[in-house]
């Protein structure tokens, strides 16, 4: 079956612009995660959804970051008034559920460059 897909794969934004990053999880996966990965580093947790409910957003770095998953499937991560420090790869992952340490399946990521 299809894996996790993300779009766009690459995004260049001028400082101050708003961006929206999309994630299509594996069908039937309850849990969806967003991570931020700086160059040469490990993924850092941003936020987590179980179906349409955002259960944890403790990793969002500022109130400029907003995520939604209105119908419990596709998710969008929005960054308002982008800053240069927002430049990173944004990874989306999905899993059957959170409890039980299920494997997370990752998408290819969106590389955001803020100029």
């Amino acid at each position, binding site marked *: 079956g299809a*894996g*996790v897909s993300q779009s766009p794969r690459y995004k260049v934004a001028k400082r101050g612009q708003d961006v929206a990053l999309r994630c299509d999880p594996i069908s039937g996966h309850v849990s969806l*995660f967003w*991570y931020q990965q700086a160059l*040469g*580093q*490990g*993924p*850092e*947790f941003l936020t*987590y959804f179980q179906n349409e409910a955002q259960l*944890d957003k403790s990793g969002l770095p500022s109130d400029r970051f907003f995520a939604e998953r209105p119908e419990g499937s596709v998710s969008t991560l929005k960054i308002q008034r982008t800053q240069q420090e927002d430049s990173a790869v944004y*990874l989306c*992952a999905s899993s059957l559920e*959170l*409890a*039980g*340490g299920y*494997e*997370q399946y*990752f*998408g*290819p*990521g969106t590389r955001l460059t803020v100029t």
Partner: protein
Amino acid sequence: AQTVTQSQPEMSVQEAETVTLSCTYDTSENNYYLFWYKQPPSRQMILVIRQEAYKQQNATENRFSVNFQKAAKSFSLKISDSQLGDTAMYFCAFCSYGQNFVFGPGTRLSVLP
């Protein structure tokens, strides 16, 4: 808070040789899960191997095996018969029951022909 440490930023190994990547973690939990993920250059992250903390037996997946030392909070990955396709970033990850994943900083492995 849980932390994951990978003390080897970069490693290299000759093709067909064996290499071990180190990972240590810090937690006060008793039930948790450990993972090794592989991220090839410009490709997406995929699971290599998974270990449940309550299982004493070390997990194995073909050429990949782990040495899980719960008391020492150590979770190393051994790659046998290294292949060129094993060249990638390797991330160790931890999650306790019902909690999010915490990833280490990664080890860049190069397999040399």
